């Protein structure tokens, strides 16, 4: 009797915020009160599907962080070339995205992925490496990454809509807007002759595989 009670008791009595619905075994803090330092509002934690939102914000934050580093790498090599301004403009938009996810991360009290230092380096190396293949190489990298990210954002939008479009309205809006901007970057990349890169399909497949792996890991770790 006690043995059967064990797992049941353990699961319910002191599982922390990962419980699905409203009142948990302990009072959840941050009930709507504004945070002290910056302008982010703490989101009331009751009633949201914490595990799903955690994953979404964590992986999106990691993604935008990685995208930032990729553009930084590309700028380091191609900053003074003719595509410099184009890359700079896309980079600025990614910086805005990252800032927004930083705010969301604090508001929803989500932990960042442990792999951030790794994405820091890997992103820069990818950006610089693709830029060393030339302007077309850099654009090909942009196309591959932005296509991955757009698809990924679409998946998240579907997930959130399945959950509860009303409850997650703000988050849905943010993700939709960012997906549209990433799609723009993808189109800009295509305009700048990304497809004319030598070994374009190989490069694209390899980069997209890497992105899928990054997304998988960042969601969990």
């Amino acid at each position, binding site marked *: *009797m*006690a*043995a*059967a*009670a*064990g*797992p*049941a*008791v*353990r*699961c*319910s*009595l*002191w*599982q*922390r*915020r990962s*419980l*699905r*619905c*409203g*009142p*948990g*075994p*302990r*009072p959840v*803090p*941050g*009930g709507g*009160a*504004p*945070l*002290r*330092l*910056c302008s*982010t509002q703490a989101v009331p934690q009751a009633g949201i599907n914490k595990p799903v939102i955690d994953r979404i914000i964590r992986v999106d*934050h990691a993604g935008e962080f990685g995208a930032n580093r990729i553009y930084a790498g590309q700028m380091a090599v191609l900053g*003074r*070339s003719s595509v410099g301004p184009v890359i700079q403009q896309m980079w600025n938009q990614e910086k805005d995205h990252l800032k927004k*996810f*930083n705010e969301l*991360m*604090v508001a929803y*009290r989500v*932990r*960042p992925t*442990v792999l*951030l*230092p790794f994405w820091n380096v890997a992103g820069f190396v990818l950006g610089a490496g693709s830029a060393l293949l030339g302007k077309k190489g850099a654009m090909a990298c942009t196309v591959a990454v932005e296509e991955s990210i757009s698809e990924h954002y679409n998946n998240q939008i579907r997930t959130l809509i399945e959950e509860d479009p009303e409850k997650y309205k703000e988050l849905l809006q943010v993700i939709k807007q960012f997906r549209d901007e990433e799609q723009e970057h993808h189109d800009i990349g295509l305009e700048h002759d990304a497809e004319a890169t030598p070994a374009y399909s190989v490069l694209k497949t390899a980069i997209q595989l890497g992105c899928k792996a990054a997304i998988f890991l960042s969601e969990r770790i």
Partner: protein
Amino acid sequence: MATRWPGATPYSPIPAAKNLPGGGTGQERERKVVSKGNQQYPPLRALQASAVLRRASDEHKKEPLASSSQQHFDSPPAGHQPEQKPQGPHPSYTGQGGQESEDYESEEQLQHRILTAALEFVPEHGWTAEAIAEGAKTLGLSVAAAGMFRSDGSELILHFVSECNSKLSELLQKEQKLVQLGEAEKKPIDEFLRDAVEARLRMLIPYIEKWPQALSILLLPRNIPSSLNLLTSMIDDIWHYAGDQSTDFNWYTRRAVLTGIYNTTELVMMQDSSPGFEDTWRFLGNRVADAMAMSSTASQVQSTGEAVVQGLMGAAVTIKNLAGLNQRR
């Protein structure tokens, strides 16, 4: 340890279950115990457990248990009311809100109450099934209720830790409200951390004699996931209220540092015999100061590192220029 009643043993189906008063309502109640709550909990045992407990409460009401079922009809409702009246304000933790009536207590709520009641017997009996049994007795239940829990007292300890963490959360939330209303000064981070850890550790003082035993039980492999969960959520709470808004690797560094401070201070507290634990609080203050110094050192190292990198980049550009490599593409 199970008491025997006429016509029933704890491990055989209770024959009179269907004759409980209110006929259908009684049955529905039995079924509700079975269906609600954790799906993993075998329904038959839940049925027996609750029936066992209810029978025990009958016993304590000193109703002579005649073999005629007539008296069975009368006692359970009387036995139920005092048990269930305080249940009104308790939220159900099972998440099956729509199906239960408000005055019905879930399995978890019952366990919660038993464990809370058992805490006052811990200084005497330790974190054991005896303490749980004593706690159950004060609630008017049979000592067999302790059979619902594991024999090493893990649930009792985890319950206690969870309750302490909740209390700490509430305390920190209250302080935060005062600061927002302008009625209190915002504390500097080292003072905030020190006060939060001290407040949390002070909750151990009534149980300090038996706490080493509890710590060792929490380190059992079976309990490690739960106890780690509770520890990390507490540390995260403290940092959240301290105003931590880091979204990079600092998030992990800070929590790791605070966990280290908390654990070492807890251990120091175990063998502290100074009056009012002043040695412990002094130790805590020193560790927090160390952590602050470490973080400022870290940022100094980082800025030095950055300066060095800048220097190297400058040197590289100079060499490129000298070698004539720095041409426009």
